[in-house]
């Protein structure tokens, strides 16, 4: 996963453009990551997509291109990169994602709490994979970035009621899944406030 630092190649003083680049990264990188993560549920791959999208933005600047709306540009590039990832040979023939490798037990004993959390996360992941990518995108923005329904509706250019409905549906599916597993008592959670 490519990770860089602020002053890797710019010298100690940096440049105004680099500063602008880092400001954009601070402002939008998590949202770009959320979009990519919602597509494939792979956090490392989502980070790769995020870094690649920002690198392409920098190259566009280097080429003299004027990008009017960097956020929209970044999200579009990240969406295309995430889709291209599905076509890549690594996706089809590569190793298993880290989440599946979590089932490999270590020789060392693990705390009970951690095992319970891993099991719960596996069930959550199974529920999330049943949802459509747009629904997962809403959930990621809501719970990873703590956006409220109005902000999500504004960012995704959809109605606020649609955001509430999708969040409610996701919660209900999760409750059903967990209750059938036997560890939880489903109380039919209500809709989003």
């Amino acid at each position, binding site marked *: *996963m*490519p*990770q*860089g*630092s*602020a002053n*890797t*190649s*710019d010298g100690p003083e*940096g*440049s*105004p*453009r*680099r500063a602008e*680049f*880092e400001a954009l*990264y*601070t402002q939008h*990188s*998590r949202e770009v*990551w959320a979009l990519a*993560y919602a597509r494939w549920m792979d*956090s490392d791959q989502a*980070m790769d997509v995020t*870094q690649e999208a*920002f*690198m392409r933005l*920098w190259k566009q*600047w*280097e080429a003299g291109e004027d990008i009017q709306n960097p956020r929209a540009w970044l999200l579009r590039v990240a969406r295309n990169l995430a889709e291209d990832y599905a076509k890549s040979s690594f996706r089809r023939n590569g190793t298993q994602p880290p989440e599946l490798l979590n089932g490999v037990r270590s020789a060392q004993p693990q705390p009970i709490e951690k095992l319970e*959390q891993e099991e*719960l*996360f596996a069930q*959550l*992941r199974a529920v999330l994979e049943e949802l459509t990518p747009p629904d997962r995108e809403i*959930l*990621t923005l*809501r*719970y*990873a970035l*703590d956006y409220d329904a109005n902000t999500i509706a504004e960012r995704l250019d959809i109605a606020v009621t649609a955001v509430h409905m999708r969040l409610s549906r*996701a*919660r209900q599916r*999760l*409750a059903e899944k*967990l*209750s059938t597993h*036997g*560890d*939880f*008592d*489903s*109380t039919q*959670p*209500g809709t989003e406030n």
Partner: protein
Amino acid sequence: MNKTPLTEDSLDAMFSDFFKAKMQKPWPAAPATPTVRSEPSSLAAARAAQTPVEVEAPRNQPVAASHDSGSKARYTLAASVALLIGTCWTLSNGFQPGERSAPANGSPNSVNMNPITASDPAVLTKIREENATKGNNKNDGFVPPVIDLGP
């Protein structure tokens, strides 16, 4: 068996824990950018040309040919071509008639053909006068036949 009640808040907490656990902590810095263009490319190129970067060759590889050897080869080629062209020009039409050397066997007509005086009328007149007084040895040993034309 006790079951954990699923409330809306607990589901929210589960989702929140799940998604936040997937986000890297600390959040990675912005990717390193290869170059910074804070000036026009022409100025950057000119500045780079003024401060050449010395790159040392790897220790286990022969030192690459220097720039001088390439220019030396070009100069050698240019000199060879110039020499060839000059030779051809000299052999074809470079000689002037006055510069041609006299034949080695020395024919009688070529005795007085000094390149400097060959075209001088005074010298030619003098040569003719000498030939008239001394006789022209050019016809020595040759008696022209007498032709009797009769009465």
